[in-house]
């Protein structure tokens, strides 16, 4: 998802008796749904896993501004421009809340951002695909924000208080994001043949990467088991992916668009939609840096950061001068 592959640093699950006392008390709190707050004791592995997960999520919000930002100056009406601008602005806000949540765990925004720019931090693979037409903005809102929502609603109940609270605010906005995207698709599909083709082309390109957003199958993974015991993950990747497919098929039908998967079929026994095999080699390749826009996205972020350094330094220098002046007067 926005954090598609989080290492918990755990190699083996331990049973309750094996846990030291502090850790057992910690796990008891989690088991009885008491939130962990920044000042509470927590195992180092829990803290590090959360920093990794929250920062991957924050980076995804920020890098995720770029593909849609690519169409901000070209939105086809003033109304669409305002809606998209408000949406992209929300994503910057999500990044801010999430970096702040990571800071409650002792990480610094500066250091996290530098890790991203150095290519050491991950972010969602989905944002490494290009936005080639206006319909891509619709497809992103509909599918990418839709997938984000499915993944993030359970995180509103995550065990770490600041993260859970950030997710509550974020989820409210994500549902508006999904609606604006679907509304763009509706307008295109009700439009001319060329517009409809634009919509289908966007769906063809975004469908499979959207399914990859949930990450590789992980039911068997030790990291998933640990993350679930800590209640920082609530469902397996495949459960969430299935939910997304089940939700999206009728939405695509309503648009009279075709999902690019010949194997997609309703399974009468399970009531779910079966779907074709995902190309995980593409996923791993994009996650490792070899996707259509990985280099470009990081270069853009790094450039903005580097070119803005003098501005941030000036603001700090001015703030320090003001503090000194106030001290002299008091």
């Amino acid at each position, binding site marked *: 998802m926005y954090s598609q592959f989080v290492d918990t640093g755990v190699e083996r699950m331990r049973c309750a008796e094996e846990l030291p006392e502090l850790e057992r008390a910690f796990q008891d709190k989690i088991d009885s749904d008491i939130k962990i707050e920044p000042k509470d004791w927590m195992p180092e592995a829990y803290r590090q896993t959360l920093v990794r997960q929250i920062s991957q999520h924050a980076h995804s919000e920020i890098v995720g*501004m770029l593909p849609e930002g690519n169409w901000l100056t070209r939105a086809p009406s003033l109304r669409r421009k305002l809606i998209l*601008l408000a949406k992209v602005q929300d994503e910057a806000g999500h990044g801010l809340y999430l970096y702040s949540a990571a800071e409650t765990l002792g990480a610094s925004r500066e250091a996290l951002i530098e890790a991203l720019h150095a290519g050491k931090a991950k972010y969602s693979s989905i944002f490494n695909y290009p936005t080639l037409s206006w319909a891509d903005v619709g497809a992103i809102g509909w599918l990418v924000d839709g997938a984000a929502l499915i993944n993030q609603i359970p995180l509103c109940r995550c065990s770490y208080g600041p993260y859970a609270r950030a997710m509550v605010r974020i989820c409210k906005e994500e549902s508006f994001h999904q609606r604006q995207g679907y509304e763009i698709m509706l307008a295109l599909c009700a439009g001319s043949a060329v517009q409809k083709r634009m919509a289908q082309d966007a769906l063809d390109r975004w469908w499979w990467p959207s399914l990859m957003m949930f990450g590789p199958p992980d039911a068997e993974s030790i990291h998933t088991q640990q993350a679930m015991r800590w209640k920082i993950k609530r469902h397996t990747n495949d459960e969430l992916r299935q939910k997304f497919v089940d939700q999206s098929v009728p939405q695509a039908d309503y648009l009279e668009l075709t999902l690019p998967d010949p194997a997609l079929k309703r399974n009468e026994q399970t009531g779910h939609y079966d779907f074709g095999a995902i190309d995980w080699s593409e996923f791993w390749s994009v996650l490792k840096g070899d996707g259509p826009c990985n280099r470009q996205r990081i270069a853009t972020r790094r450039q903005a950061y580097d070119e*803005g350094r*003098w501005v941030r330094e*000036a603001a700090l220098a001015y703030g320090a001068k003001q503090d000194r002046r106030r001290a002299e007067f008091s």
Partner: protein
Amino acid sequence: MNRQQALFEYLLRLGDNALILGQRLTEWIGHAPALEEEMGSANIALDLIGQARGWLAYAGTVEGAGRDEDDLAFQRDVMNFRNVLLVEQPNGHYGDTIARQYLFDAFHYPLLTALSACTDQSIAGIAAKASKEAAYHRRRSAEWVIRLGDGTAESHAKLQQSFDTLWPYTGELFALDEVDHTLRRTGVAADLTAVRREWHEHVTRTLAGATLVPPQEGWMQSGGKQGRHSEQLGYVLAEMQFLPRAYRDARW
């Protein structure tokens, strides 16, 4: 020029200023110096483009030729845009953007405040709401001018250069022509002499607070309000108008 033509021109000036500056600010999104500035720039752009919709929709009504806000935003060419040259100038570095924004905000706020008392009720309504937004814009950009001017030696030098470069575009803000004269007679147009007084006072105070030197008065650029623009505007429009022009009858 009759009153209706003058009113249409006047509304285009108000709408195009807001639209083009808002469009310029959206170019920053994803590229700003800090996350807070991504959000701040987006806020100002949202306000300005929102204001542009109000002005252009009313301009369409006044014109009476069936053009709506989008027809006016997306289907006019450079020679028919009426924004001042200042707002179409490129973003440059963040200091250039802040200087451009401040010089405009310091004009925009008193202008909109004056228009809130306009005899034309539609103008007064849009201006009353917009002036509240502009008050915040001016406060924010003035704070940035002071922060960058009185920040580091590097930021000080950069910002001084930004003001020196943009200064020749400030004369046009207050230049009167037939449009103003026609509308002044009926109490519609704002008194730009009074607006200029407030602008000058505010700018002088802010530059002093920022330890910047007021640029030398001298030759001033002009022409934007009459449709004679700089080379910059064509590229802004080419980008902004691409979709509605490439797909003439499409609805989005």
